């Protein structure tokens, strides 16, 4: 043991674990340093993975050969596809996880990954020579050498917890914060700021009256996160429960506002607008008389439940009094109160698209340290940072994602181009080409690239090739198979659908909103045979084929526009214009261009404060 590695990853949360596994699986000798080896992959907030846009990110991570999808599937106690009533771009997988099992699966994964080493300690200092990172020093006094370092410190940098007026220094409840790194990075010239997030209280199931609440069950079908056919859901499936706050609840909450850290000036940093605390909700939406709460299970062997929608940093007694007024929670017993946490982040415009810092070579940032929120956003960045740290160590080319290729690409481009002014969460509306970034085809978009890189292994690549072949085969059958009215009309009639007067292709019937491939397989035996002959994951093949058929018009048009706009991405800009000398653009635009130093015209166009006119000027100056 010589404490010399290719790559050191600091922090074993969702970003750190994913980064470490990616780097190690690519062949780098990687060290993962965590303050507590019993909390690898800890879910600091709610015990759920995925959701709208986030679920798509997890599918992308899996398609790349990352681990989050596998860990989530194995620890899932409920799985749903959200937004089923909307188009396929919106179908979003989400699961409740058994929190303990999630940590166990992650621990198993990192401890069984070749080239991956573990060390329990706190990193207090980076070793930096000539603007290049060379290793880290720890609280235990160990000096470790590495060619690249990835920081994934989450909420731990100068973390400060707020429970009403009580303030506790820490990175998470009952865990110490981390000091020294922010100060060192600041002295190296990094811009830093503070952010705030929060989490609700956890309660004892034995004190909940579930009969007074509405039950929300999971889906019971083939969907899951991982594209690998070997990964399955293994645990008993559980329900979530829905209840509501009422006027009396709000009255109790209002009594505590004067002691609320958010409203008495104790917390100054910005929290996420889309994930407000319950006290923010009653102040901002004072006319609403009820707010929805989801009561989510924390695990199969646990009595612990999570009150989703009730994030709060009000004093403990206020939280308790307010909860007791909620239907079904009258006799509630708390395990622990909700709290708010403030932590340091670094302006992500200081990063390249590879997540390497512009200032210090081979130093990478991933996760909440970049001002994002969410396990999935963190994991996606971790994966990318892990890949690029490996590439840097072994002379590989930088690896980046396009905005028309993945949500991770949208995420990273937004971060490094626009920066953040509140914790950044992914939404589907952030993607220009939503219909190209569906959950059903992340493998089609990414697995081949990852296979060429060496991250996705042969089993995954073989599955992709099979899926592609089966999909093409099914598609061509459906497009060429002619249906006669006599053959299909009894079926259509039985479904109460308009009958055919002339023959048509099977394809035309699938275009009808009420009909799918499986429906028609009932009436067309050859189609059924075709589907029965798909050996692996037939449902995935059928679903993706059906989407291609039903939405081809939209998909094609989006592709055309993406290609047209992509030409701007192909015009390199970096290093070609001295912005100081361009008088024709506004001072604000000039400063932004100097700060971000965009790679392409396309990226420049997305910088806030850069007007279309500015972009045109840049194009003209490039002599196009």
């Amino acid at each position: 043991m010589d404490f010399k590695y290719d790559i050191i990853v600091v922090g074993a949360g969702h970003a750190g674990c994913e980064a470490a596994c990616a780097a190690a699986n690519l062949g780098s000798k990687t060290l993962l340093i965590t303050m507590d080896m019993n909390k690898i992959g800890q879910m600091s907030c709610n015990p759920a993975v995925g959701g709208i846009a986030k679920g798509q990110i997890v599918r992308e991570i899996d398609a790349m050969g990352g681990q989050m999808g596998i860990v989530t599937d194995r620890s899932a106690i409920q799985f749903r596809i959200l937004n089923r009533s909307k188009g396929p771009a919106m179908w979003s997988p989400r699961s409740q996880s058994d929190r303990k099992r999630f940590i166990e699966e992650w621990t198993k994964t990192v401890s069984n990954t070749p080239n991956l080493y573990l060390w329990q300690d706190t990193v207090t200092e980076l070793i930096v020579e000539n603007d290049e990172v060379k290793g880290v020093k720890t609280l235990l006094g160990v000096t470790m050498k590495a060619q690249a370092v990835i920081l994934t410190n989450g909420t731990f940098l100068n973390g400060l917890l707020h429970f009403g007026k009580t303030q506790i220094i820490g990175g998470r409840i009952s865990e110490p914060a981390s000091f020294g790194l922010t100060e060192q990075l600041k002295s190296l010239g990094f811009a830093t700021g503070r952010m705030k997030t929060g989490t609700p209280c956890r309660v004892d199931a034995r004190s909940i009256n579930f009969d007074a609440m509405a039950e929300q069950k999971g889906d019971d079908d083939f969907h899951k996160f991982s594209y690998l056919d070997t990964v399955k859901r293994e645990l008993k499936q559980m329900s979530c429960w829905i209840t509501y706050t009422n006027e009396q609840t709000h009255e109790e909450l209002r009594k505590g506002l004067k002691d609320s850290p958010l409203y008495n000036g104790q917390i100054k940093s910005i929290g996420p607008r889309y994930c407000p605390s319950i006290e923010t909700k009653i102040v901002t939406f004072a006319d609403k008389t009820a707010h929805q709460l989801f009561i989510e299970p924390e695990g199969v062997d646990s009595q612990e439940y999570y009150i989703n929608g009730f994030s709060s940093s009000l004093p403990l007694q206020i939280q308790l009094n307010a909860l007791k007024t909620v239907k079904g929670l009258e006799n509630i017993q708390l395990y622990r109160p909700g709290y708010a946490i403030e932590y340091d982040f670094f302006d992500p415009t200081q990063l390249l698209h590879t997540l390497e810092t512009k200032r210090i070579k081979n130093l990478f940032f991933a996760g909440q340290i970049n001002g994002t929120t969410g396990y999935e956003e963190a994991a996606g960045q971790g994966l990318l940072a892990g890949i690029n740290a490996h590439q840097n160590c072994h002379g590989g080319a930088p690896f980046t994602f396009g905005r028309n290729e993945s949500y991770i690409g949208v995420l990273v481009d937004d971060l490094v181009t626009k920066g953040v002014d509140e914790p950044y969460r992914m939404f589907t509306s952030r993607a220009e080409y939503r219909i190209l970034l569906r959950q059903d085809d992340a493998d089609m978009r990414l697995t081949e690239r990852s296979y060429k890189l060496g991250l996705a292994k042969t089993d995954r690549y073989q599955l992709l090739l099979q899926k592609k072949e089966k999909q093409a085969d099914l598609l061509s059958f459906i497009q060429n198979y002619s249906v006669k009215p006599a053959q299909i009309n009894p079926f259509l009639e039985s479904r109460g659908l308009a009958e055919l007067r002339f023959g048509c292709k099977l394809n035309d019937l699938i275009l009808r909103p009420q009909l799918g491939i499986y429906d028609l397989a009932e009436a067309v035996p050859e189609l059924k045979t075709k589907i029965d002959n798909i050996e692996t994951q037939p449902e995935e093949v059928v679903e993706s084929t059906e989407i291609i058929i039903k939405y081809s018009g939209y998909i094609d048009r989006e592709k055309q526009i993406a290609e047209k706009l992509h030409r701007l991405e192909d015009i390199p800009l970096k290093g070609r214009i001295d912005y100081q000398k361009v008088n024709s653009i506004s001072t604000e635009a000039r400063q932004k261009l100097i700060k971000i130093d965009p790679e392409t015209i396309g990226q420049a166009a997305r910088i806030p404060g850069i007007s279309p006119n500015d972009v045109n000027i840049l194009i003209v100056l490039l002599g196009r």
Partner: protein
Amino acid sequence: MTICAISTPNGTGGIAVIRVSGPDTVSAVSTIFRPKNEAHVLCDRPGYSMTFGSIVQPGTGEAVDEVVVSLFRAPHSFTGEDVVEISCHGSLYIQQEILKLLVQAGCQLARPGEFTQRAFLNGKMDLSQAEAVADVIASTSAAANRLAMNQMRGGFSTELNRLREKLLNFTSLVELELDFSEEEVEFADRGQLQQLADEIHHVIEKLCNSFALGNAIKNGIPVAIVGETNVGKSTLLNLLLNEDRAIVSDIHGTTRDTLEDTVNLNGIQFRFIDTAGIRDTTDAVENMGIERTYQKIEQARIILWLVDCTAVTEHIEWLADRIIRRSEGKKLIIVFNKIDKIEPDERQILEQLFQPYPAERIYISAKKQINTEELTQALIHAAQMPEMSENEVIVTNLRHYEALNKALQSITQVQEGLQGNIPGDLLAQDIRECMHYLGEITGQISTDEILGNIFSKFCIGK
């Protein structure tokens, strides 16, 4: 870099204007300009000033011409840079000589459109305004000029930005429903979205429809001159154009193809289209010409049906059938030519014969130029140009029209989608497309080809 060019048309005129723009404008012009009043040294003169003096050879001091120098100081000039306009006498030699001296003084000859490009680069105008500069220069009628001026001042951009805001509003309502379906927010109901979509559709459609008018204003109102062979169509065209444009002869069917030219009558631009005479013939080439005549009738807004007073036969009904059928919704004027060759009672017969046809009738002689003023008045009246208010936005540019048309298709899809209850993400895609096409006009979404195309369209000096 300081640039210079002759800004007035190529050739000899009363005066000519040479424009200079760039950081060294004043110093460059100073080396070749000697003010009449020695106190009026150019570098001390304020912006918006005119200085009288001579252009001289820097070496010998020999005067080339007496000129007036107008000075505009940055940023208060067309290009946003220091600009000088030298008004000199119009001789080609003088123009070339001054240009040569300017180049010797360190100026560069401007590339096509470079002055406008600089104005654009210096934030003096956006893309659609820059395009309008070309239209202002090329405008041949009062109405066309007014339109182009309106666009140059940004009227069109304002209208589009307003539209964009509406769309942004609409799209945010739809996006909300998508990303926050799991949260407890209230979504816009479909009726409200439908109303908003209808509003947007209405605005885009109005802009699209204005193109027919805008095009007529910019390119001239199309007037087709039709009739049998040898009734004097080409003579009439020449009369209207005041030149021997069409080949005139006594041989039937001389004009076998259509000829067009524009002329400005009373500030209105007309585009006259001479057509091949219509008759029953087996000549394949001539029949092709006749077929094209029918097409031209369809494209025209005004049809002049020319009839030879001296040669009216029962064949006229066959002809009337063909012309009137195609004139629906257009202004038809029957012009009786060679009026000087018939007696008043013959005219009575003609009147009766043509009574059934719904058209205005005018009697002229193209050759002797009788009553031609009455024809001109009828044309101006028929043009019926709607009064344009200063602020009305009318689309004249084909590129804009095409983009608007695509935007109209997208918003129509949005409306259909709302009726068919399609999912919000697909609706959102249609709205985004609509915004994309509108963005193409103002340069919100700019591709380098559009820019290249625009700047290459300008003539030197602008």
